[in-house]
């Protein structure tokens, strides 16, 4: 929202420095809010992660050490947690996009009235608490749940399917939670693509599939990128799904952060985990963005 206020005040040359001043003042609330709620807490976290842990209290103030980072980056226990979180998040991102894109594409092709109804249906889960959604999945998927009961009474399976309390359950949970966001993002981008572009491609001799591949898909790439970012970032920081739908063998970073802060009472290590997770997300996003840019350039050339 901050860049919106900043770009709208493009003053004429005659107003010169006044216009610039206006722009600074208009951007100020956004800058203050961002600093107060995002940058300052992260800096606190960073500072704590560099402190010495002391049993009996959270951390010793005023001390400096890299201990928590050396532990995190050398201990296989923590590396496995990071690897699992990253792996599941990438899987969830791919599956989420694969589900959301066709849905968004289909919703966008519906008539105006049906489109409103469908988008409404997409939004409804957002009004529900995430824990309620997850317990809903437990009712359906757990060994004595609706799915297994149904399949067993139909005689299709003899033993309950193991679809929760493992990675499968975690994936289902995060995909479900992020699906509305990615559908909304991609439906908006698809709706912004001029219909006559596709018609023009068809008229120029492209089949339905080729018109999609050469026109719709490249033009919806920004939506795919945004949706992928939202899903991935959400998944990397997810807590409830692995906690309730996963197993103790597959731990997410946020679960470990929670246990370091609340159970082990090791604030420097918890903070170190948080900062490392944050950095890992940034690195993955930067790499993904540069790969996308190179691919786009190669496409154009």
């Amino acid at each position, binding site marked *: 929202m901050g860049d919106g206020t900043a770009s709208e005040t493009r003053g004429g040359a005659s107003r010169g420095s006044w216009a610039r001043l206006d722009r600074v003042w208009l951007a100020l609330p956004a800058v203050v809010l961002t600093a107060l709620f995002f940058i300052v807490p992260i800096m606190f976290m960073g500072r704590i992660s560099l402190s010495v842990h002391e049993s009996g209290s959270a951390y010793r103030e005023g001390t400096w050490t890299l201990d928590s980072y050396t532990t995190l980056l050398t201990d296989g226990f923590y590396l496995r947690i990071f690897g699992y979180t990253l792996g599941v998040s990438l899987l969830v991102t791919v599956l989420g996009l694969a589900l959301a894109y066709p849905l968004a594409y289909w919703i966008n092709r519906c008539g105006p009235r049906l489109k409103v109804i469908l988008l409404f249906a997409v939004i409804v889960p957002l009004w529900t608490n995430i824990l309620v959604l997850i317990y809903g999945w437990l009712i359906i998927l757990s060994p004595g749940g609706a799915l297994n009961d149904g399949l067993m009474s139909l005689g299709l399976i003899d033993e309950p399917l193991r679809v929760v309390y493992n990675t499968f359950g975690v994936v289902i949970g995060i995909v479900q939670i992020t699906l509305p966001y990615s559908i909304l993002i991609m439906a908006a981008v698809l709706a912004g693509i001029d219909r006559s572009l596709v018609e023009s*491609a*068809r*008229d*120029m*001799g492209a089949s339905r599939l080729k018109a999609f591949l050469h026109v719709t898909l490249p033009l919806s790439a920004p939506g795919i990128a945004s949706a992928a970012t939202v899903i991935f970032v959400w998944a990397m920081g997810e807590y409830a799904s692995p906690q309730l739908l996963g197993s103790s063998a597959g731990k997410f970073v946020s679960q470990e952060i929670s246990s370091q802060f609340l159970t082990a009472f090791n604030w420097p290590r918890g903070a170190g985990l948080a900062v490392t997770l944050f950095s890992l997300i940034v690195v993955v996003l930067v790499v993904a963005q540069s790969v996308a840019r190179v691919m786009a350039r190669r496409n154009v050339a």
Partner: protein
Amino acid sequence: MTDVSVQPMKDSVAPPGGGATTPDLEVQGLSKHFGPVVAVDSIDFSVASGEFVSILGPSGCGKTTTLRMVAGLEEVTAGRIFIRGSDVTHLPPEKRNTAMVFQSYALFPHMNVHDNVAFGLKMRGVSKAEIDDRVATAMRRVRLEGYEKRKPSQLSGGQRQRVAVARAIVVEPAILLLDEALTNLDRRLRQQLQLELKELQVDLGITSLFVTHDQEEALTMSDRIIVMDEGLIAQDAEPSEVYDRPASAFVAGFIGESNRLDGSVAAGSGETCTVRTESGLDLMGIHSGDVGQQCAVMIRPRAITLHADRPTKDNVIEGVVKLWAYKGESYEYVINLPDGGDLLVDLPRREAVFERGDRVFAAFDARDVIVVERA
């Protein structure tokens, strides 16, 4: 301009395939319904090879829907479409060998100009060397050499329009379809591109169907004009005939400015007839209608002259100058008639020396009085 003029074929209903005279486009009983709305109501027309035909009409008359059905972008409710003799009514757009220039140009924003123009050839599986060759030729034709690497967003409206034309002609379509292709340009550029497009069309001998709501554009560019109104063809004729001998009051009112007076045929003898208008004027016109028939009289503002003294002409109406306006090439006068109605008169420069309130005589020949049936 009319060196490619072809006889109108409005009455041809015979199935195509008649040898050398097969038109490039033939439309039979074509209809389109959107729910209860009849957008196009069983129309027939054809476009001969090399002909430039305009579909002209107000918005909502069904002209764009007709064009889109020819392109295959709109399902046909009833009727048949033949392109070069083969039935394409139910073929998808990519199998029709038409090429359309959209009102919005519909250039692919993520491709540069070269790739936009090459798109149709690429889809047709043409080799890369030939694509480059033909794209270069098309770019020369529309005078855009050197712009190949630009993105559409880096071009002006006129340049985008040329790219859209290049993209369409490069595939050498059976029919070039133009949907309000010049509407989004400013007036001066539009007039320039009208001539360029017409020249290109004649040079290439490319069969064209042009949809427009701009009567001046249609008159300038077309070999033939199909005037549409409420899903029906109101007239299908050469531009001069549409202008001079409009088939209905609608056509006369839509093409060019005219004064309209309603009345009925009072007397008729041979070529000429006398129309008594509702306000009691007797006007002489050319028509062979039945006496008593309801009709409308249309007079072009240019056909009327103004005089201080009563002249000897077929038709003379006395009135008072209500107001006048300088229009550059001419003066426009509004003459207040005794019955309270107004008469629009367009006089060449300097011929006009009347002021507001002057009593004048408006005169015009019988051959300039267009008498059309009134529904």
